[in-house]
């Protein structure tokens, strides 16, 4: 199993809310986050976010049904508020795609946090893009601490988000016919197109890094709260 790194002074296990808005597999992400030191709560209602230090939006599939299920559970506004207050967010696969303005897959309007749209992979030799592929970094970030540049992660998708202002947001790219954006970061907003919870030791390390980011943010905000 992975080593539980991070500073020795790390506080109690940070609480991470994993948004549950459908029928997909949440067991893997729950177990992976727990393994690397987080407490996990499955969030089915905005109230479930109240005590959380970090938010993970997982998911596979199409954008329109996902947006309508989020809306039904009143989670759209809650997620937008979360991101606008710059609290740690990790979008996985569809959870990254939803950050853009809309999806070409079904024309769905999505969260619109990042300028740009989700579109079908161009010149892909096979679709869906299923399997392990290399994640090449465009810049360094704590999310990839301890992970080799070009490490393999597990992908399963046909669409990917293309940020309009790509220079600042793009963290990593992956090639399947042509390069596409496979990781983004803007402040505490993070997103990966691959599935770290299904990507062996490197995937666990990435989630461990996210948990450390969440713990650091929680420690900083409790310091602010105490001094206020």
């Amino acid at each position: 199993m992975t080593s539980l790194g991070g500073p020795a002074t790390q506080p109690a296990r940070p609480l991470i809310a994993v948004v549950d808005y459908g029928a997909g597999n949440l067991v893997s992400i729950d177990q992976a986050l727990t393994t690397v030191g987080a407490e996990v709560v499955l969030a089915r209602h905005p109230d479930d976010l109240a005590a959380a230090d970090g938010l993970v939006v997982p998911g596979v599939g199409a954008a329109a049904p996902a947006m309508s299920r989020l809306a039904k559970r009143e989670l759209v506004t809650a997620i937008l508020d979360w991101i606008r207050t710059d609290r740690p967010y990790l979008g996985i696969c569809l959870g990254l795609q939803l950050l853009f303005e809309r999806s070409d897959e079904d024309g769905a309007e999505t969260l619109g946090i990042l300028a740009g749209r989700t579109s079908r992979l161009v010149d892909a030799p096979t679709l869906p893009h299923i399997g392990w592929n290399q994640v090449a970094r465009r810049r360094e970030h704590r999310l990839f601490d301890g992970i080799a540049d070009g490490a393999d992660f597990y992908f399963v998708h046909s669409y990917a988000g293309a940020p309009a202002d790509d220079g600042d947001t793009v963290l990593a790219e992956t090639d399947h016919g042509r390069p596409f954006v496979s990781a983004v970061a803007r402040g505490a907003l993070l997103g990966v197109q691959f599935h770290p919870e299904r990507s062996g030791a490197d995937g666990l390390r990435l989630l461990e890094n996210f948990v450390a980011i969440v713990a650091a943010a929680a420690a900083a905000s409790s310091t602010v709260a105490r001094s206020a």
Partner: protein
Amino acid sequence: MLRHRVIPCLDVADGRVVKGTKFVDLVDEGDPPELAERYAREGADELVFLDITAAPERRGTLLDVVERTARRAFVPLTVGGGVRSVVEMRDVLRAGADKVSLNTAAVADPSLVSRCASRFGRQAVVVAIDARRRPPPSPGEEQTWEVVVKGGREPTGLDAADWAERIVDLGAGELLVTSIDRDGTASGFDTELLRSISSRVGVPVIASGGAAGPADFVAAVRDGRADAVLAASIFHRRIHSIADVKAAMADAGLPVRLVPAA
């Protein structure tokens, strides 16, 4: 660059890994999560559970096994065998599977594939095609294969390549192609069958049936144009390790994910 996947397949009956010949003389081989974790550690890129539990009322055992596996092996898991409805597929995904493989049920009702794909996304829907060679063609005609179901016992009259194309149009995100002629014979994959299907579809094709050694995996990808390769007994019996197979593929210039020895 996308890696070619090497996928061990585990037969699961009543919550235990079993092995036997064509569903008879089953021998208990252990706890599925434990074996799954071992394979993941040894470099498996994905795992397939084929549920061969005879009694439908014992399906709950499978869901428990899927969940315990998902909590121990952090690689993707596909579950095949016995899923006949959107609700059953939902239960298997909720238990911790990433994909479900449909076989007989897809032949009986092809609309099941579209319903599952629209509910869960096509990436979660694998269709397994079991194919048998038709009698050798007359000169000038192409070899064809027929889709068979129920472990090869029942012919369907469907042409395998036509069926592949149709089922992809309906929403299959991946095809698991098994040669019934080669399955269990250790005589190599049917690369012509694989080629006849991979040349007709744009989704990934997983080769299955007949693996004897690392050279067969290379042939399935190079000659059969398969994207991924699945095998059962050569891994279970430790005839070859996943690392052996991947080393041979890498030597042949095929991109694979190499996992450092634990």
